[in-house]
């Protein structure tokens, strides 16, 4: 007992991060929201599209690239390979979550401002307390681990009223990781059916958002009937700061007014 106290006081200390409201500390080489340049690409060049493992980049009219962060693995290959330097990744814009699929698509010269929850009912019910039942449905364990990390003292999501719960009966939201395999579809359906309404669906990571690498796999099923996603969080896996920030915005809490 005394040893534990001594450890806490003199060695381990207080380690909960200052984020939010302070900016999160992101690693060198962090790849955040893609930045696309507006100039039209040469008519014959499609190197980014040919390289992208998930088909996240497409050329819109006028040969301007657009990048779907919901499919993106953030490998950065497109940026590396583009001779025109038309694609790069922000080293600081970690706020990637969106309430619609459209918000996830980066286009040239956008003025990106992540949306805050407008739905009054969600703000009222979930604004100060969001209980989450996480379901891994073909996840590779990375999304799961980095959601778990929000529970550690370094991130301590509990201080915002966010908690992972065991029973779907106690949950406000289900957080799905993985592309939803056929073999997990029924379990996911049963879990969702057991949740009291209103309840919400969070798709965490590129697999859950779009199928990602596994979008075309014959083992990949769709979301069970009646489920539609209320919050999309891109990444492979999403950085803990990206996920936490998205959850807070979903609850209607701006990063500046967290406490």
């Amino acid at each position: 007992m005394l040893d534990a106290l001594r450890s806490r006081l003199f060695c381990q200390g207080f380690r909960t991060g200052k984020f939010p409201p302070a900016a999160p500390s992101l690693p060198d080489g962090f790849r955040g929201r893609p930045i696309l340049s507006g100039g039209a690409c040469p008519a014959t060049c499609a190197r980014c599209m040919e390289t992208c493992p998930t088909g996240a980049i497409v050329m819109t009219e006028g040969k301007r690239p657009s990048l779907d962060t919901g499919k993106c693995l953030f490998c950065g290959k497109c940026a590396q390979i583009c001779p025109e330097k038309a694609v790069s990744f922000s080293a600081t814009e970690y706020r990637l979550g969106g309430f619609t699929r459209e918000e996830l698509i980066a286009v040239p010269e956008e003025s990106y401002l992540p949306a805050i929850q407008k739905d009054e009912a969600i703000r009222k019910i979930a604004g100060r307390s969001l209980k989450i039942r996480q379901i891994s449905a073909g996840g590779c364990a990375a999304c799961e681990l980095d959601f778990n990390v929000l529970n550690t003292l370094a991130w301590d999501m509990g201080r915002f009223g966010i908690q992972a719960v065991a029973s779907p009966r106690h949950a406000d939201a289900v957080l799905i990781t993985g592309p939803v395999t056929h073999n997990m579809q029924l379990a996911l359906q049963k879990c969702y059916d057991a949740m009291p309404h209103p309840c919400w669906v969070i798709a965490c990571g590129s697999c859950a958002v779009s199928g990602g690498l596994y979008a075309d796999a014959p083992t990949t099923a769709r979301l069970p009937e009646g489920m539609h996603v209320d919050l999309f969080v891109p990444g492979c896996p999403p950085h803990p700061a990206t996920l936490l920030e998205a959850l807070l915005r979903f609850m209607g809490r701006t990063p500046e007014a967290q406490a």
Partner: protein
Amino acid sequence: MNLFSVIKNQTSIRRADLPRLSVEEFRQAVLDKVQSGSTRVMDFFAEGRTLYAVLGDANAHAFLLTSCEINQEYPSLTADAPAFHWFERELWEQNHIRPVGHPFLKPIRFSEGVPGVTNYFTPAGDNLHEVAVGPIHAGVIEPGHFRFQCLGETVLNLEIELGYQHRGIAAMLAGGPDRKTEFLIETAAGDTSAAAMTAYSMIAEALGMAPLPTAGALRLRRVAMELERIANHVGDLGALAGDVAFLPTASFCGRIRGEYLNMTASLCGNRFGRNLIRPGDRSGAVLDAKQAQKLIDWIARIKPELDNALTLLFDAPSALDRLENTGVVSTETARLLGGVGVAGRASALVLDARNDFPFATYRKIPRIEVGSGDVMARALVRRSELEESHKLLLEDLRAVENMTENVPDAPLKSPQPDSIAIGCVEAWRGELFHAALTDGQGKFSTYRIVDPSFHNWYLLSMALRGEEISNFPICNKSFNLSYCGHDL
């Protein structure tokens, strides 16, 4: 007549040079080797109607390969060498080949049918009861279905049904390599990305897709793999502490694990080492002297905090009492079932792919003198490996002069046709075995991934026999096996 082709790690042979035995010769040759204890089963699979066996000979630092043609069925090996039992179930499920005489033939990942709906081992008796758990578990963890047959509090048998995570990775890898291949490998088990990419890179190099890596690139692989090992071992020890309600270590380790993930992220931008390792000298990382010094200083700061957190746990008799003599797997059981890695070493098996099939820059990892086979032993193996990993890591970082300056993707060449290549590494859970078979056009006709969990899931069942059901969480955590790495 040669019964086996003998090849080293990270090399390939032509398919034509592989012995083709009769079923009887094949069976005898393989059983002789495995029963004598001189080799262990690395892989056992079929392509079409050809059976392949890959055995590992630790003394010769080599793999023994052989094959035979079969029809729909062949006499099962499991009764004579139990380490084949899971492989034969896989063979039956994936290739519809029947190992005749297998004691309990049923699917391992339910690529057809409904997962979990199968025969269960059901003892009869008035006072028995059955506890079914999952696929969805209480915590934030991958899905699997566990059935406990209990007499009062005592577990008579635990059956583990997996397959919920089945994403069809093997089918997607066949026909490659293509632009998805490297990413599929990295996400086969997302907590083992660096080790998996190292194994794939070794295969790519063995098949002539990329030049052999420079010393710098090899060092980077070891740095990435040891960081991965440290992060996961720290997380596991913290989680074990949490499961016995020893919260200080659980809390401290949860944060400290993140520090090591962030070290990996500081190299490549991703906490799980995605894009960090690539065949040849390609890499998504910058590791120069400045970066190395930054990591050395970082470790110097964190390591004492880790030691402090672990000392608290290992000095607390009340916590240790829960770990000792819990979930024992005997050496004999572990050997017969082909246990590997942390769990294997905890049951006094002498195996480590870093010693047995040398790769990258690994030389002689000291043997760990722990062998009681209980939860405590699995914890102590991790603690001791943490020390060794730090040593290797610092050795590498101090040797960094200048390396891997973000070499842009040089296109890979097409793999050498009609060949078989092997890449085996010691991932943090245990040995991770990759094998690629190429066709005449230089495409993968089969790409095998054998995760250490594939060998070890049944060990968890054995650990529960005679155990109180309330000890399941710490037993499970002490193995911490991968569901997706198994289900693929």
